[in-house]
């Protein structure tokens, strides 16, 4: 099980190991199948990731990303088909314009852009999936808990 880590316990006990919570929005056709393949191939990857399956990365509204942060995610990943492979022909082309632009807005607002990651993982890339999750989990651990919204919740303004 995840170790739910709040800011207060982090202050109380420096020793508690921080387990980041990563919310991943995966497209049904490529990345979700890729994650499935990683599982059936018995490739291990860190259990910090919470997968939300969507039809397509083109479906990802930036609201989803912010909402995940607001509810306590330390990192958000959006993953889908490689360019050219979209099941709906062009959904990922639209995501490739919209989401990186959103990332630059987050950065402008002072939210570390590394907390929002994107990847292309095909249905055949179980290995890449497990590598991506291992890499971003390591990065999220290094970045530490994302406390902005927690703090906002605690001391009303």
């Amino acid at each position: 099980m995840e170790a739910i880590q709040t800011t207060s316990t982090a202050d109380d006990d420096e020793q508690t190991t921080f387990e980041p919570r990563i919310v991943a929005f995966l497209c049904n056709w490529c990345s979700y199948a890729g994650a499935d393949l990683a599982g059936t191939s018995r490739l291990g990857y860190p259990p910090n990731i919470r997968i939300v399956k969507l039809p397509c990365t083109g479906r990802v509204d930036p609201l989803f990303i912010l909402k995940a942060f607001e509810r306590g995610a330390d990192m958000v990943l959006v993953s889908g088909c490689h360019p050219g492979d979209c099941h709906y022909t062009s959904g990922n082309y639209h995501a490739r314009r919209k989401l990186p632009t959103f990332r630059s807005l987050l950065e402008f607002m002072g939210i570390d852009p590394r907390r929002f990651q994107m990847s292309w993982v095909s249905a055949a890339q179980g290995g890449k999936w497990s590598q991506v999750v291992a890499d971003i989990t390591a990065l999220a651990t290094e970045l530490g808990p994302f406390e902005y919204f927690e703090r906002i919740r605690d001391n009303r303004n």
Partner: protein
Amino acid sequence: MQDLTQLLRETAEDLLKRKAVGVVIGYGHTGSRGDMTAVFARTPQQVSQLALDGECYRNLAVYLNKPEVRKLGRCAIVVKGCDRRAINVLIRENQIAREDLHIIGITCEGVGDPKMQKCRFCTVHNPPDCDTVLGDPVDIEPEEGEFAAVEAFETKDIDARWNFWKEKLKDCIRCYACRQVCPLCYCKQCVVEKNIPQWVETSSHLRGNVMWNVMRAFHLTGRCIGCGECERVCPVGIPLGLLNQKLIQQVKDKFEFTSGMSADEKGPFSTFDLGLDTDDGIL
């Protein structure tokens, strides 16, 4: 400026008498303190309320697709160059049709004292594609450094940026004036009014305020023409224009796009370009 007002009244009177339009939307000193506000002249008698002077800040395009205005029939509308660009976006998004409008463009050297930020970088002092143009042609080159404010802000490190926005956004009282005044925020039901699920918390508390202001800015990506009305009306002085400018800069840098320059353009998020788009920053 007096004669311009006269010219405008004559134009409006003629249009209304000929029944070429049902309403002329313009400016007039009809606010409760004599301040400049919107005038809807529907009869030749009412044209005497119209006026033109250096206080024509408002972007009247906001009224164009309101159902209560549409009911009045064909519209004539008084616009500055920047407002004209907003109309292009409304046309490209199928909110209004060019033939339903009689556009009265006024040439403009800039508004506000000191001049509003946008006016220093304006490329549309002489509004394009209008049915009537009033005023002498203006010949002012835009200044350099359109995004200087954005770049100056970006010299702050990431924590300083967040602290800046946190301090600003905590004051937001969620009056939604910024939305109401925006000609391009025309959704019949805004995402903040949806409550199943409740995407944006509605109390004026920093958490929902961050969500609201980020969404407001992002929904205007590739659409905002930078008229600056949102920032001008914000009662607590949040620099909303800075967020908009950041996105205008992104769209220009990444997609070589400037919104509102033509009614035929395609918004950057409703298209893509394999020659331009890259996988930068994607694993």
